[in-house]
C-alpha cells in the first residue's frame, strides 16, 4: 500500500542547481585531513631527519654495510651514504610510505564511516577521487624529497669527497650530487606506481588491512622477484626495476636503457592502476554500509589488467630491444669486470702512492668461466670465476689476478679477490680519510642486461 499525503508544494521556480566543490578546494580538504594524522606528521619528521642521522651514525661504525650497494664506500665519502639511503628507500621505505599514505586514503573513509558525509559535502565522486589522488601524491612529494635531502645532508656531514662509481671510475662530488638527485627523480616513477597500486588497493579492498598493506606487499614482492632468475624483458617490465636500475647512472658510459625502460613501465603501471582505481570507485554503491571492498571485481579490475600490462610491456621490450634470456652473458661480465678493475687499480695505485698508470695503458682484459667451465657461461650464480690480465708500462710480464664473482639475477655482482694477495687480497691502505680496505679486494659491479647496441 502506498499512502499519498495531502497538499503538495509547488516547486519554487529557479531552485538552486547542484553546486559541486572545485577540485582545488576538495584537494585542500583532503590535505588537511591527511596532515592532521599524527602518523603522517611523524613520517614527515622521520623522512626529513632519519636518513641524515642514519648516514652519520653508520659512517662512524668500524663495520660498514658492505652487502648494500655503495655501503663499503661509506668511510670514503658521504655521497656513498646518501646512495645507501636511496637503495634502502627503494627496497623498504618507499613501499611502506606509499602504503601508509596512498594505501589508506580511501579506506580511511570506510573505517571512519565518512563516505556519505564526504559525498554530500563535495557532491562529485569524480572530484573526490581526483582530490584524494592528488593529496596523497602531494604528501608523498613531501616525504620523498625529505629522504633525499636528509641523506645528502648526512653525507655532507661525513665528508664530500669523490665517489667510486659502480664501474670504479671516480666521480667528483658535484658529479655525484647531480647523479644522486637524478636517481631520486627516477625512483619517483616506481614510487608513483606503488602509490597507484595503493589507491587501487584502498578502493578495491575497503577496510581490509590487505588494502593498506598492498603497496608494501607488492613492493617487497617485486624486490623478491628481482632476485629470482627470469627473462630480462619481464624483469624490465616490472615497476620496481627502477629501484635497482638507477645504479646505471653511476657507470661510464651510463646504462640508461634499462633505466628508461623501467621508468616507462613504472609510469604505465601508475596510469593503469590509477585508472582502474577510478573506474572501480565510480562504480561503487555508497548506500551500503556493509561495503567492504569490491570482492570479485578485484580480480577482474585489478589483478588481470595488471598481469596483462606486464605481458604487454614485456612483449614490447623484447621486440624493441631483442633482449632474451637472463641478459647476463660471458662477454658482458668480462667487459664489466675488466673496466672496473682498471679504474680501481688506478685508485689503488694512487692510495699506495705508486706510479699513476692510465686505464688505457693497463689494457685490462678478463676471462671468465662459470661452474669451472662445466656449465654455459651465462646467467646468474656465485660460481663465476674470472682471471684478470693487465700490463704495466715498461714491464714485459703480464699481471694477473683471480676473482670469484657472485652475479645476482638483476645484473649486480660482487667481485671477491682470490689472489694474489698483494694485488687483490685484504690489506689496509692509508687514505686521506683513514685506513681503508684494499679497493681491489672486494667491489660491487653491474652488468647491463640489455644487448649492446650493434655498431655500424
Amino acid at each position, binding site marked *: *500500500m*502506498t*499512502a*499519498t*499525503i*495531502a*497538499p*503538495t*508544494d509547488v*516547486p*519554487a*521556480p*529557479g*531552485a*538552486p*542547481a*547542484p*553546486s*559541486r*566543490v*572545485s577540485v582545488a*578546494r*576538495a584537494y*585542500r*580538504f583532503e590535505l*588537511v*585531513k591527511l596532515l*592532521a*594524522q*599524527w602518523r603522517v606528521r611523524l613520517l614527515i619528521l622521520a623522512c626529513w631527519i632519519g636518513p641524515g642521522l642514519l648516514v652519520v651514525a653508520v659512517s662512524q661504525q668500524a663495520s660498514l654495510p658492505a652487502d648494500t650497494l655503495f655501503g663499503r664506500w661509506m668511510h670514503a665519502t658521504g655521497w656513498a651514504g646518501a646512495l645507501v639511503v636511496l637503495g634502502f628507500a627503494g627496497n623498504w621505505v618507499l613501499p611502506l610510505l606509499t602504503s601508509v599514505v596512498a594505501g589508506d586514503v580511501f579506506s580511511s573513509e570506510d573505517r*571512519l*564511516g*565518512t*563516505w*556519505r*558525509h*564526504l*559525498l*554530500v*559535502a*563535495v*557532491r*562529485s*565522486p*569524480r572530484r573526490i577521487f581526483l582530490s584524494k589522488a592528488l593529496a596523497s601524491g602531494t604528501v608523498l612529494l613531501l616525504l620523498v624529497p625529505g629522504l633525499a635531502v636528509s641523506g645528502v645532508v648526512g653525507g655532507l656531514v661525513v665528508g664530500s669527497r669523490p665517489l667510486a662509481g659502480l664501474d670504479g671510475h671516480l666521480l667528483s662530488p658535484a658529479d655525484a650530487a647531480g647523479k644522486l638527485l637524478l636517481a631520486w627523480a627516477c625512483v619517483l616513477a616506481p614510487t608513483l606506481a606503488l602509490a597507484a597500486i595503493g589507491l587501487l588497493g584502498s578502493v578495491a579492498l575497503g577496510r581490509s588491512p590487505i588494502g593498506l598493506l598492498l603497496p608494501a606487499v607488492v613492493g617487497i614482492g617485486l624486490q623478491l622477484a628481482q632476485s629470482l632468475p627470469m627473462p630480462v624483458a619481464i624483469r624490465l617490465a616490472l615497476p620496481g626495476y627502477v629501484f635497482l636500475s638507477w645504479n646505471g647512472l653511476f657507470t661510464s658510459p651510463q646504462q640508461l636503457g634499462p633505466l628508461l625502460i623501467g621508468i616507462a613501465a613504472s609510469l604505465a603501471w601508475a596510469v593503469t592502476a590509477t585508472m582502474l582505481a577510478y573506474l572501480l570507485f*565510480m562504480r561503487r*554503491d*555508497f*548506500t*551500503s*554500509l556493509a561495503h567492504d571492498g569490491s570482492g570479485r571485481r578485484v580480480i577482474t579490475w585489478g589483478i588481470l589488467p595488471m598481469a596483462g600490462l606486464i605481458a604487454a610491456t614485456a612483449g614490447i621490450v623484447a621486440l624493441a630491444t631483442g633482449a632474451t634470456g637472463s641478459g647476463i652473458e660471458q662477454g658482458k661480465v668480462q667487459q664489466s669486470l675488466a673496466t672496473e678493475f682498471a679504474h680501481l687499480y688506478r685508485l689503488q695505485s694512487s692510495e699506495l702512492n705508486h706510479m699513476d698508470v692510465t686505464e688505457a695503458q693497463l689494457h685490462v682484459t678478463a676471462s671468465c668461466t662459470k661452474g669451472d667451465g662445466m656449465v654455459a657461461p651465462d646467467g646468474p650464480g656465485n660460481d663465476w670465476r674470472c682471471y684478470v690480465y693487465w700490463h704495466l708500462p715498461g714491464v714485459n710480464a703480464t699481471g694477473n689476478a683471480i676473482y670469484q664473482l657472485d652475479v645476482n639475477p638483476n645484473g649486480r655482482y660482487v667481485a671477491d679477490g682470490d689472489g694474489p694477495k698483494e694485488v687483490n687480497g685484504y690489506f689496509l691502505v692509508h687514505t686521506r680519510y683513514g685506513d681503508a680496505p684494499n679497493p681491489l679486494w672486494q667491489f660491487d659491479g653491474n652488468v647491463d642486461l640489455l644487448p649492446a647496441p650493434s655498431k655500424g
Partner: protein
Amino acid sequence: MRARGLVKSFDDVVALDGVDLDVVAGQVHGVVGPNGAGKTTLLGLLLGLAVADRGSLEILGRPAGRTEYALAAPDGVTGFVDGPGLYPALTARGNLAALAGLRGPGARTAGIDDVLEQVGLTDVADDKVRGFSLGMRQRLGLAAALLTRPRLLVLDEPYNGLDPAGKRHVHGVLTQLAADGATVVLSSHRMDDLEALCSEVSILVTGRVVFTGPLSKLAAANREIDYRLVTSDQAAARRVAADATGVRVVDDAGTRPDPEVLVVRALVPALDELVPRLIHAGLAVRELTPVVSPLESAFLALTEQQESSR
C-alpha cells in the same frame, strides 16, 4: 520535496516499494518505521547518495539522484545518514573549518562559532573529535549541516546518544530552522522526540508508506488507545469507567502495576464523555494521559497490522 512511486532494491532486497511522499517547506517531517523499513534508504535518496530504480523525486524544484559523475541533489540539501561523518584527528572547529573551506569565500555559509554555539559545543570547540561522545558527535554533525544554511536538512537518528541538554539544543535548532522556512526530514525511533518536534510524520513498513500526515490525524484516527487515569478515589473511578459506554478498564496493559493508576482503553469521543462523569461522581481528575504516545501507538498498530497481513 515530492516523491512519486519510488522503488529501490539492493540485489534481491526491496528497500523501497512505491513510496509517495510530499513534504512542504518550513515543516519538520518525521520518518518512522521498524528496522529495515527503508528509512535510511529513503533519506539517502533525498541526499542524492543513491538514485531510485523507478519513480521520480523532486527536491527544491529539481530532480534529484546521482549521475555517474555527481550528486544531483540541489544546493541547499544537506544532512547525514547512519551518523555524522567526522574526522577524529581534527578538532570540532577544525572539522567545521575544513568543511567551510570546501565551499569557498563566496558561498552562503553560517559562521563556525555561531553553529557551535547553536548546538552547545562552544566549550569543546578546540578539542579533538576523537574524544567526543556519541551525543557530542551528533551535535557536531548537526553543526556541520547548519554551516551550509540548508533549505532541506535530512537527519538520520539525530537523537542517538543525546543527553537532555543536547536534546534541548537539537530541538531548538531544528525548530528555529523550520521557523526560518527550511524543511527538515528526520528519522528516529524516539517517538516522544518526534511528537515534540514534527508537524507531520510518515510511517514506513517494509518499504511502503502506511501512514503519512499530521500527528493530529493519528490521534484522531479511529483507534482505541490506553490512558493512565489518576483520580482522588481510584476504586470509585474504576466503577465509573466500567459503567461508561465505550470505555474498558484494562488490567493487563503491560505497564508496571500501580494501585494508584487506572488504565482505561477508549476512543477519544468515549473518553470525552468519561471525564464529566468522573467529575459528576465527585472525583478529582489528577491525570489523564496516553500510556504510549499516539504516534507510538499508531506505529505499533500499523506495523503489527502490516506484519499480520503478510
